[in-house]
């Protein structure tokens, strides 16, 4: 798991992960690259991350992937990420195509639902919580 201040160097990450797994005899490598779209007049998105819980979430995914013979990786930005730059890269390596296609979908969807990351629109230099696009994590409402 890799966290960076600001936008990701997507090519460096893609290439380094490729090299790291060069000898692992995988058959399929599927990265997912998330890039900030220009919309609603935003200048950037900005992110807060709670690293200890993100680490636990990612560790549990590494175990799940390992049980299916696969490897997962992820990188995410902290702070401001301008439009048309990237804030998120995740990836699956697997001997098998089917496992890789299934895992990348499950991994990315669970990431969206349960990774402890908070998103803000940046407009005129101001951070505005993206409440309408945010999802309560599994188990929310426990204290209500």
């Amino acid at each position, binding site marked *: 798991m890799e966290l960076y201040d600001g936008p990701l160097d997507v090519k460096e990450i893609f290439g380094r992960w490729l090299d790291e797994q060069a000898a692992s005899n995988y058959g399929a490598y599927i990265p997912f690259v*998330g890039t900030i779209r220009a919309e609603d007049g935003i200048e950037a998105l900005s*992110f*807060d*991350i*709670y690293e*200890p*819980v993100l680490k*636990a979430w990612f560790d549990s995914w590494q175990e799940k992937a390992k049980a299916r013979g696969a490897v997962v990786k992820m990188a*995410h930005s902290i702070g401001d990420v301008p439009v048309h730059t990237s*804030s*998120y890269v995740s990836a699956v390596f697997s001997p098998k195509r089917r496992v890789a296609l299934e895992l990348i979908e499950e991994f*990315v969807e669970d*990431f*969206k*639902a*349960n*990774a*402890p*990351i*908070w*998103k*803000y629109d940046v407009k005129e230099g101001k951070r505005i*919580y*993206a*409440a309408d*696009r*945010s*999802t*309560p*994590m*599994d*188990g*929310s*409402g*426990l*204290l*209500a």
Partner: protein
Amino acid sequence: MVKVEFLGPIGKETIEIEAATLSDVAKRLKEESDLAEWLDKCAVAVNDTMVSDLATRLNEGDKVSILPPVCGG
């Protein structure tokens, strides 16, 4: 005493309270009017492990984290 911290956009300072279980934390937090809009959509971690049981016991110095709705990526 346990520490309760509010993550991301909640924008509330960490507080310290007396609590033997998460139930006690819930009771106490419901008294805070600035949390009214948050509690029903927040998840909870104790010492950085996600929890789902109000009966979870707390010990002196434990850290309770309140996690509002997320949107990574």
